[in-house]
């Protein structure tokens, strides 16, 4: 059958490029390995370089072809149809690359290519072994997008599969329509959750971080391969700090995205995938520090190796967790399973085995009998710090891996029911120790230091920290002892490092990377502690009775449209809702009461509910930022079905009121009083027949803002049959009828139908104040600048060798 309008040539080019990139990577591995064995043989190096060039050009071209297909909405390709649509704004096009697994593998491959270019240019004698390892990884990554069958086993998932040939689609009726392409309305589109500016930058930065962890690993394994067992430390050190910076930045951007766009009320949720990227960062921090010790006095070679290897393996493991579907629904990040878990395990297994075999083969030179580190040496305390980080990593990894452990051992352990308390029980003490070590570490000298001198130089910052801690704890009402301990420790790490920066280094910029990064870490932990431990939920439902200890959560409050409720210092009004695309925005005014008793609008927040057919509807918060606090608001529940936008205009069943003159009728949004009857109503309002007897009721209506209206429904008797001519008040969404007169009791029956939108229009919301959360973000900036400076310094040192 001939299909109309398909452009198959791009897919063929794409597939050819994938095949070339895979083959070129394989060739580059071989060439560089040969070159490593025979460094004098420049021909192999040339082959390696040419293959790398071919690989690099192919990878970038695959990107280009896929980009072209997405921009031109070529929906004959499954990936394009699945991840984009014609209405997708251009600025989110790149996000299509990381919504799907295939695209994100390409992104990862791309970053490796970019980083490898630096090795090519500056690697020198390290080029052959390091490039060999990098290209091994590229072989595996390219195989993830191959989409080739070996018997029944499919290797990789190909981004250029045609829509009509995709296994899920091939049996559908459209696949046999020659003109199906003209009849496709649109692509499935990008998950609206990803249509957020943080999601444009968070994934690529995170993948850059992942890619960066390959470099220390490649140097470590390259060192073993080429028999330069200790020399790899110096050139790898810059990369380790670069990785700490890039991965840290990626994780923190994810946290910022969660805080801005996700509704769990914070920036960190101990989500399995957050954890899975945090752990390699912790081990990479460990690696970078032990590598410094090793560079200084050759005392921690084995731990340098182990931490570099573990970091890279943990990145692969986190890929496995997200992409194998094993996490199920426990995470916002989980991709659907594309049947590649087996392949990912082979990938992971290969590099574990490679590293282990090489380490065993070189065990004699790797494991050395070292002289004991002196307890007053800097390296001793750094080492203790790394072990404490290892404890932190153990807890996080073990807990995150429970689904994997269940699968292997057939157990049925569930993740902790109260994750925050669970993690805090270990991570808070760990953070306290780390902060103390970060504070004292730099005042110790390598090899051996004079304890009295160290103490003397720490006295000032310790004393300052005590004073600040007492003041902050008192002002903010900290009572729990382990929080006060962390408060002190984090403040101490900031003051001690600032002290070191100004007093010891005297602002010598080149050496201040560590101090600046450590100030950053202290600020991050301080900001986390202060903003979270002292966060205040101001939407507490004060009207409700206490429901006992089983129902401690009283955090949500109902707001009917136009009602005003007091929340802490604010008076909060839900004013209106409006729909824009997939989002329903709820306008919430925060008012402040002035001294003269009037209310003044302080600010307006617009949290929204995103109608997300892919993941269910998602509530996105809106946050007002002040220098000293954030006010975070989100809609936890809105009746989208019955009180939704579509049938707002429909009326509910009318309600009957039997009243006398002067009586009041109460509606959900107004009150009205029956003032009088009019025996000669305006007859233009209906088609009058000769026999009609008509009386109208004059109702005076006032809404919640005391604005007045009048309504005049008519009661008509025609040929002994009574009916009513209703009066409609559009502004209030009321339809008022006059259906009966009881002359004996002088009672009248008035019916009031309200628009569904009137009564049902309420939201349940939650508002939280996060005090001083800007300390956290400031800390992030310090940490990133500090690690960048450290990376720069180590790269420079390596170049001078």
């Amino acid at each position, binding site marked *: 059958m001939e299909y109309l309008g398909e452009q198959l040539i791009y897919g063929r080019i794409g597939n050819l490029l994938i095949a070339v990139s895979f083959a070129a990577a394989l060739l580059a591995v071989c060439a560089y390995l040969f070159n490593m064995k025979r460094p004098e043989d420049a021909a192999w190096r040339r082959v390696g370089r040419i293959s790398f060039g071919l690989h690099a050009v192919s990878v970038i071209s695959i990107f280009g072809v896929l980009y072209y297909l997405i921009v031109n909405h070529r929906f004959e390709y499954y990936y394009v149809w699945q991840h984009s649509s014609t209405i997708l704004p251009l600025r989110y096009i790149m996000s299509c690359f990381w919504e799907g697994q295939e695209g994100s593998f390409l992104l990862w491959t791309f970053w490796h290519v970019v980083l490898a270019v630096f090795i090519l240019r500056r690697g020198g004698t390290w080029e052959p072994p390091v490039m060999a390892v990098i290209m091994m990884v590229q072989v595996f990554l390219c195989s993830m997008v191959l989409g080739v069958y070996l018997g029944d086993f499919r290797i990789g998932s190909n981004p250029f599969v045609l829509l009509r040939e995709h296994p*899920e689609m091939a049996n*559908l*009726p*459209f696949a046999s*329509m020659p003109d*199906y392409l003209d*009849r*496709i*309305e*649109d*692509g*499935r589109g990008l998950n609206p959750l990803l249509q957020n500016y943080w999601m444009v930058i968070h994934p690529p930065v995170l993948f850059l971080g992942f890619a960066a962890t390959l470099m220390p690993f490649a140097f470590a394994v390259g060192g073993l391969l080429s028999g330069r067992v200790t020399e790899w430390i110096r050139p790898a050190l810059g990369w380790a700090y670069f990785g700490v910076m890039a991965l840290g930045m990626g994780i923190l951007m994810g946290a910022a995205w969660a805080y801005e766009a996700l509704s769990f009320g914070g920036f960190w949720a101990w989500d399995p995938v957050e954890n899975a990227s945090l752990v390699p960062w912790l081990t990479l921090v460990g690696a970078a520090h032990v590598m410094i010790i090793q560079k200084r006095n050759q005392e921690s070679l084995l731990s340098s190796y182990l931490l570099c290897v573990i970091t890279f393996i943990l990145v692969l493991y986190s890929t496995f967790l997200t992409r194998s579907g094993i996490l*199920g*629904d*426990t995470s916002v990040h989980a991709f*659907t399973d594309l049947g590649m878990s087996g392949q990912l395990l082979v990938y992971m297994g290969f590099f574990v085995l490679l590293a282990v075999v090489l380490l065993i083969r070189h065990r004699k030179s790797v494991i050395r009998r070292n002289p*004991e*580190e002196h*307890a007053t040496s800097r390296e*001793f305390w750094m*080492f*203790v710090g790394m*072990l404490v980080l*290892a*404890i932190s990593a*153990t*807890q996080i990894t*073990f*807990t995150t891996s*429970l689904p994997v452990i269940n699968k292997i051992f057939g157990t*049925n*352990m*569930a*993740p*902790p*029911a*109260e994750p925050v308390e669970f993690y805090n029980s270990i991570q808070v003490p760990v953070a306290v120790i780390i902060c103390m070590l970060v504070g004292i570490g730099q005042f110790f000298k390598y090899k051996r230091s004079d304890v009295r001198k160290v103490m003397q130089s720490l006295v000032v910052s310790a004393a300052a920290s005590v004073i600040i801690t007492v003041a902050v704890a008192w002002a903010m009402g900290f009572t729990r002892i382990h929080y006060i301990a962390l408060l002190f420790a984090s403040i101490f790490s900031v003051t001690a490092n600032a002290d070191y920066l100004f007093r010891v280094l005297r602002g010598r910029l080149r050496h201040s990377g560590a101090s600046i990064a450590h100030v950053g870490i202290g600020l991050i932990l301080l900001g986390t502690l202060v903003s979270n431990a002292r966060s205040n939920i101001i939407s507490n*439902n004060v009207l*409700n009775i206490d*429901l006992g200890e*089983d*129902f*401690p*959560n*009283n*955090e*949500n*409050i*109902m707001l009917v449209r136009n009602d005003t409720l007091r929340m802490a210092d604010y008076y909060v009004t839900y004013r209106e809702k409006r729909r824009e695309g997939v989002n329903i925005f709820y306008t919430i005014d925060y008012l402040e009461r002035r001294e003269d008793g009037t209310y003044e609008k302080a600010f307006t927040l617009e949290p929204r*509910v995103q109608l997300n*057919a*892919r*993941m*269910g*509807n*998602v509530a996105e918060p809106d946050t007002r930022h002040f220098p000293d606090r954030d006010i975070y608001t989100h809609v*936890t*529940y*809105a009746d989208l079905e019955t009180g939704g936008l579509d049938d707002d205009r429909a009326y509910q069943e009318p309600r009957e009121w039997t009243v006398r003159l002067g009586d009041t009728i109460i509606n959900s949004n107004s009150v009205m009083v029956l003032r009088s009857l009019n025996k000669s109503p305006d007859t233009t309002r209906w088609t009058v027949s000769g026999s009609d007897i008509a009386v109208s009721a004059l109702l005076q209506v006032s809404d919640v803002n005391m604005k007045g209206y009048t309504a005049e429904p008519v009661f008509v008797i025609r040929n002994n049959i009574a009916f009513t001519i209703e009066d409609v008040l559009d502004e209030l969404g009321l339809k008022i009828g006059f259906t009966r007169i009881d002359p004996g009791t002088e009672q009248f029956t008035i019916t009031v139908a309200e628009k569904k939108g009137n009564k049902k229009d309420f939201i*349940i919301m939650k508002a939280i104040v996060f005090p001083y959360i800007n300390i956290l973000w400031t800390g992030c900036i310090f940490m990133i600048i500090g690690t960048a400076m450290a990376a720069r310094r180590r790269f420079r040192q390596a170049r001078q060798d």
Partner: protein
Amino acid sequence: MKKSYIIGIVVIAAAFAIIVSTVSKSSTYADFGTAADHPGKVYHVVGTLNLDRPFEYDPEVNANIFGFFMKDNNGVEYKVLYNGTKPQDFEKSEQIVIIGKMKDEVFVASDILMKCPSKYAGNEMQQQNLPNP
């Protein structure tokens, strides 16, 4: 003995202690029967909603309590009271996991995880915007 050995042993012991405490503290996946046998103990129960019985959610009375009926994987049904707002799209969830404990023949849940069929790219979703004869 060398300092490094002592520290190493302490760290290994600490890591081991953490794992043991995680295992012993961790709640387990269970059915309603087990939860009913151990009232007050926290379990994760997996099951499906019974949509024939109405939800109980009246935010005007209390926005923080949501009641519904759930069948576990053995078909045993219990009433569940969740301390929170009614999750969006709750009725559309294919499978739910509730975390909490049994109390007086009612399962008191502190958290709910939902499996949304759409997330699993169900057929209806998969075929959206595709031509039909």
